[in-house]
């Protein structure tokens, strides 16, 4: 489909639902039904089966006409992780139920994967799910759960067969966060905020209809989610100098008195890195819709984390005495993560999480070494023995 065709479809949507006189949610629902929510997704699922990059044309046309957006920063886990996983592994009923309100932002999602004993080694989760009739009863503790306080649903990995091999005993669920057995407790972060939480699950009841994929297929489904997370965190689809490089470039331009030759060379190197990372993301976005993210896409996330950390450090150094100040240490439970809405100190500290969340850079480098380059795997003493007999 050409850009003109897409613009035409956008114009039709705008004519039928003029943003000025249409309720925000009504507009977003109509956009979804018109297939203009994410044109890279299939027809009937808010998309048109095109490539991800085609969305740029639609978004530009809608934004120019003052149409509302779906506030993607408030539901990044839903949009970037839950949605592609549901589309690939969910039943048609599950997709029908969950996808529209996920896209419009009416229902926010979080990710109940990590546990105290299962971080990098996600397959080690010990949260249990046992079947009682046609309902799963879930018990365990999750940790580092971003945005759990705002979420209506979670994607959850739990152990359904402790006597199976580590990766084989896992199953993937949608967990309703309003179940009385879900207890969300904030964890304060180095930025001062509590963006993530501990989540205690006590006899949480999940109907079997909320299982995603087969019993025992949880690892495969979770891996698909993580691959999508890494692509989502790695970003893309943005114009030159957007994101962190834009913020730091702006700081450089507006503080001529702070410029120093050493920092200038570092800035220019990072500018190139950021621009090439953007072009690499574009390449991913131009892929046909049927190509799913794989281990090679981890490169984008490793690079993104490095650039974000180096840029934010550069900004703090650039600002000198002013970089020694902080905007606000108040403990808050934010609705979204915004790098640009806060000060340089916040950006630096929050970016430290970029190489940890969604798979640490070390783990992703292992993945590239083993899955892309085919190098021999690290020795794994926990391989090939039932999970409940392994040394944890």
């Amino acid at each position, binding site marked *: 489909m050409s850009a003109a065709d897409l613009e035409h479809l956008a114009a039709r949507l705008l004519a039928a639902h003029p943003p000025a006189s249409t309720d925000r949610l009504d507009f977003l629902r109509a956009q979804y039904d018109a297939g203009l929510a994410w044109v890279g997704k299939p027809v009937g699922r808010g998309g048109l089966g095109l490539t991800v990059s085609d969305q740029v044309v639609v978004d530009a046309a809608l934004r120019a006409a003052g149409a509302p957006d779906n506030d993607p920063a408030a539901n990044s886990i839903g949009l970037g992780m839950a949605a592609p996983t549901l589309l690939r592994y969910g039943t048609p009923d599950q997709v029908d139920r969950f996808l529209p309100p996920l896209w419009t932002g009416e229902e926010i999602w979080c990710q109940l994967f990590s546990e105290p004993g299962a971080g990098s080694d996600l397959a080690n989760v010990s949260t249990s799910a046992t079947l009682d009739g046609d309902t799963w009863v879930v018990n365990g503790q999750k940790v580092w759960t971003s945005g759990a306080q705002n979420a209506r649903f979670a994607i959850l990995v739990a152990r359904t067969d402790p006597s199976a091999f580590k990766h084989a005993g896992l199953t993937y669920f949608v967990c309703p966060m309003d179940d009385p057995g879900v207890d969300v407790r904030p964890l304060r972060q180095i930025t001062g905020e509590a963006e993530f939480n501990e989540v205690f699950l006590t006899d949480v009841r999940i109907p079997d209809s909320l299982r995603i994929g087969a019993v025992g297929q949880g690892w495969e489904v979770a891996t698909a989610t993580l691959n999508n997370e890494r692509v989502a965190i790695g970003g893309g689809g943005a114009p030159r100098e957007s994101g962190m490089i834009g913020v730091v470039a702006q700081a450089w331009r507006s503080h001529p008195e702070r410029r120093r030759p050493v920092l200038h060379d570092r800035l220019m190197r990072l500018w190139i890195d950021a621009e090439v990372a953007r072009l690499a993301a574009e390449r991913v976005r131009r892929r046909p819709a049927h190509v799913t993210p794989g281990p090679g896409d981890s490169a984008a996330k490793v690079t993104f984390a490095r650039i974000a950390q180096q840029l934010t450090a550069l900004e703090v150094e650039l600002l000198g005495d002013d970089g*020694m*100040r902080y905007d606000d240490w108040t403990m808050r439970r934010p609705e979204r993560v915004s790098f640009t809405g806060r000060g340089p100190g916040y950006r630096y500290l929050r970016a430290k999480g970029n190489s*940890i969340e969604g798979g640490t850079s070390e783990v992703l480098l292992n993945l590239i070494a083993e899955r892309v380059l085919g190098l021999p795997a690290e020795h794994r003493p926990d391989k090939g023995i039932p999970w409940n007999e392994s040394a944890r």
Partner: protein
Amino acid sequence: MERERTMTATAESTALAETVRRMLERVAPATSLVHEDGLDALLRRVDAALDDEIGLAGLLVPESQGGLGGELSDAATVATELGRACAPSRFVTATVLAGPLLADVGHAGPFGAACLVVPWGTAPGELLPRLVVVDGLVSGSVRSVAGVGDGPLVLPVTVDGETAVAIVSADAPGVGLAPVTSLDTTRPLTDVTLDGVAVQVLATGRRAVDALDAGLERAAVALAAEQVGLASWCLSTTVDHVQQRRQFGRLLGSFQALKHRLATLWIEVDSASVAAEAAATTTSDRAVLASAAQSMCSEVALHAAEECIQMLGGIGMTWEHPAHLYLKRALVDLNALGTPEQHRRRLATLVDLPPAG
């Protein structure tokens, strides 16, 4: 003879380090640092223990002026322990920097927790006083000053176009002290404003310039020592963590990807400690070694803190674990008392390696 003296000095410095370390473990354990409300009280307790209990008040002030006549190396020993504990203290800004500076310009004391009113980023040799004394009065402001307490404020000023050192009490009429929300909560900064404040000028010209430069250089040496302590804590905390934490059925420390980084960091911290110690003990080569140490230790400390956060994983991103305090202090102190490249530039002049162009 020489050898014996060195050995006695080393034994004394080890004893001092242990005394300070034990005091800090008692008064300012890492767990007490994350409660930011109590930091001011904590700072007072730490400094009271250093000054009165251990008896380090006036450490670097000559005996003839009522001080202890101690060596900068003693101060560096103390600073290393303060860095290791990430303890809030005015030791570097008062005992090392402003107190002896006052003694240098002939002030009779008492020195209390004196504070040199300059931005915390000021490098030795690059101080340009912006406050001007007109008819004995000063008006103006200085942002991001470290070490402001209730002790006297030491002001770099100009009088008739000449650099001078002046003093005023922190509660004098016209003095405004506005606390800053600081990135390093353990060394809070203050914005100082002066509105027609009557000051006493203590020295002018060469004497003032030399005292200011020497003071900033002493502080840079002590800060380098502090950064070594900070880096050591980060390294040992990380090593302890990877010795205990298992993932994939293995201790994290068994993964060579981490092992090599920690070994590299150990080499860096070891080099940094050599640099800091040399700068603190030299009697003939202070300027060169001070800038070499400040450049190296600043970068090693930040690297150590960043590696610590990364290898702790999610725990390193929490407020509850003290690692973030070390990260924040390391980041701020990268630019404190001069950026690494300001020190390299200063060094370049001293060792005659001029830049291009």
